């Protein structure tokens, strides 16, 4: 009789299907768990973004740290292709970084003398396998003809118009909106970097000469890029109720005297931040031989 009968393969098929379903559920569940865990993976940089100016033929090395939120294994730190020709990360990999651990890295910018001038935007990101771990580090590299390399302090921007006119490196935090006459507005600060042929007189005499009319409040020797420099604090009184605080740093180097200035209005409540930003720039500046 040909009654209904089960296929001789029916039981194993059902059993197999069941196993597959269970396994699938396990895998899916595991996948969900993996995804949930991965979504918590994150790295924090000591600074969320870095903006540097590097002169053609120049180098700049910046220390930076990353801190992991989650356990990372076998990670690589890479710059995007736009930045890769100019930027290497040292070290570029870690076998593991446990959650909460911090790793020291160096961003090494190196620009050839014949590199195209311009602004290069990109990121440095941490990769684990074929996955990118947020957050990427935002990097802006400006390649100029200036014989120096600097880390642009946070909140300051490079004044591109002045650069285009062949002027000094001008950084400010007020979108170039100078008061008429060229004065820094309230709450603003600007930094100018230039150089002149080495004066053939004593540096102290040169400084006295160029700051004629200002009130020098203090001066001292400081180390800049491994060389002895003079730092002068002075005040300018240009109006009945308006005076400016300034810091000037003079760095003799070969046949050039490099000069770095900070200016802001006297009494500004952000004075300590301005001075801190300026000192950060001074501590990282490099001059192209």
């Amino acid at each position: 009789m040909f009654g209904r009968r089960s296929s001789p393969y029916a039981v194993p098929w059902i059993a197999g299907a069941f196993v597959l379903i269970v396994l699938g559920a396990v895998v899916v569940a595991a996948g969900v768990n993996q995804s949930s865990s991965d979504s918590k993976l994150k790295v924090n940089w000591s600074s969320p973004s870095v903006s540097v100016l590097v002169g053609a033929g120049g180098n700049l090395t910046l220390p930076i740290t990353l801190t992991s939120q989650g356990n990372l294994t076998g990670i690589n730190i890479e710059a995007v292709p736009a930045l890769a020709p100019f930027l290497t990360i040292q070290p570029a990999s870690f076998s593991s970084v446990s959650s909460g651990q911090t790793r020291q890295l160096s961003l090494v910018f190196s620009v050839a003398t014949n590199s195209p001038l311009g602004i290069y935007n990109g990121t440095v990101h941490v990769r684990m396998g074929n996955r990118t771990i947020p957050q990427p580090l935002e990097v802006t590299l400006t390649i100029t003809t200036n014989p120096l390399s600097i880390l642009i302090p946070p909140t300051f921007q490079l004044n591109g118009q002045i650069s285009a006119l062949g002027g000094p490196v001008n950084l400010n935090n007020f979108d170039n909106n100078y008061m008429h006459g060229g004065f820094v507005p309230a709450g603003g600060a600007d930094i100018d970097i230039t150089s002149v042929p080495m004066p053939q007189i004593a540096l102290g005499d040169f400084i006295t000469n160029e700051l004629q009319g200002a009130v020098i409040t203090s001066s001292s020797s400081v180390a800049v890029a491994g060389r002895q420099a003079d730092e002068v604090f002075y005040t300018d009184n240009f109006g009945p109720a308006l005076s400016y605080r300034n810091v000037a740093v003079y760095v003799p180097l070969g046949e050039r005297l490099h000069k770095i200035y900070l200016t802001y209005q006297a009494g500004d409540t952000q004075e300590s931040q301005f001075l801190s930003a300026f000192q950060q720039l001074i501590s990282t500046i490099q001059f192209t031989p």
Partner: protein
Amino acid sequence: MRVLSSFIGIFSLIVFPAFAGPYDPQLAPQIDTYLTGKNSPIAGNGAVFFSSGSIYNVDPRLVVAIAGAESSFGTAWDACPETGFNAWSWFYGGSCPNSSFISFADGISKVTSGIRRLYLNKGYTTIPQIAEMYCGSGCESWIPNVTQFYTDLGGNVNDLTFPPPSRFILQPGPDTGKDIWITSVYSYATCSGSYPGGGLYDSELRVGGWGDLYYALLQFDLTGLPAHATSATLWLYCYSDNSGTPTPMYLDRVTQFWWDWQMTGTGCDHDRLWWADRPSTAQWSAAALTAPVVGQWYTVDITDLYNAWQNGLYPNYGLQLRPVYNADNFNFFYSSRYTNDTFRPKLTIQQ
């Protein structure tokens, strides 16, 4: 380029380099003629443009040219009120609340010093670069106008400086300075009583009075300095008005030797110059000098007096600053004995 840097004797004497450049000793009258041709009220200040340009090493033609671009040489006051003498529209932003000058001469001096320290020092060395900061928007005609006026006067757009042939700065310290203040009534001596009228030989120079009189005397050793100067400027730093009001001053030429007060004198000690022993003087300038501003350098043009000393017309016994007013009027300057050498009196000489 000829370069010298030296010390003469024990004075701090700085000799600055000589350049071939846009410096023209005849520029002052040329500026006056040019401004007169523009019907400018600034005409007549050619010497101020020249001396300010020399002091700050800024081509005076540039300061004239900026006034031309900003206010048609002080004939158009759309931006800033005429009473402010602000032909350069400093701080203009719909108004000029912080930009009034007390005279065109004051404006010329301050704007010139600003061009030096805000621009030239920092590497803004061309008119377009200066324009980018000075006049950020709505200033399309600024560069061509400034350039036109500047070159009209013979300026070189590739060199905005104005270095005189040679420049000297004399700034004595406590060991060599000869400066002191005296007073007419009160004695600052511990032995006071029968010998009133003695000041102090300390870190300040007082001019003024409150019923009484305070004079300051200074004498610079001019040995080795040029026989003739195109400009000689006395610099004093005014640090206080003693909670009174600053006073204009008269400039006197001292006509008698006086720097022997530490050995001679009629007072009860030799620690000060007693009022009774003050030297004779002759008023040098008919007009009074303007009052200083507390917290700022105060300059006195003593070119004529310097040249009179150096050519032997008068012996150099120094100068005296005498107050115009003495009703709670005080000008307190630092002396050569002040601890911070930056603020001590100095004399700048340009050949």
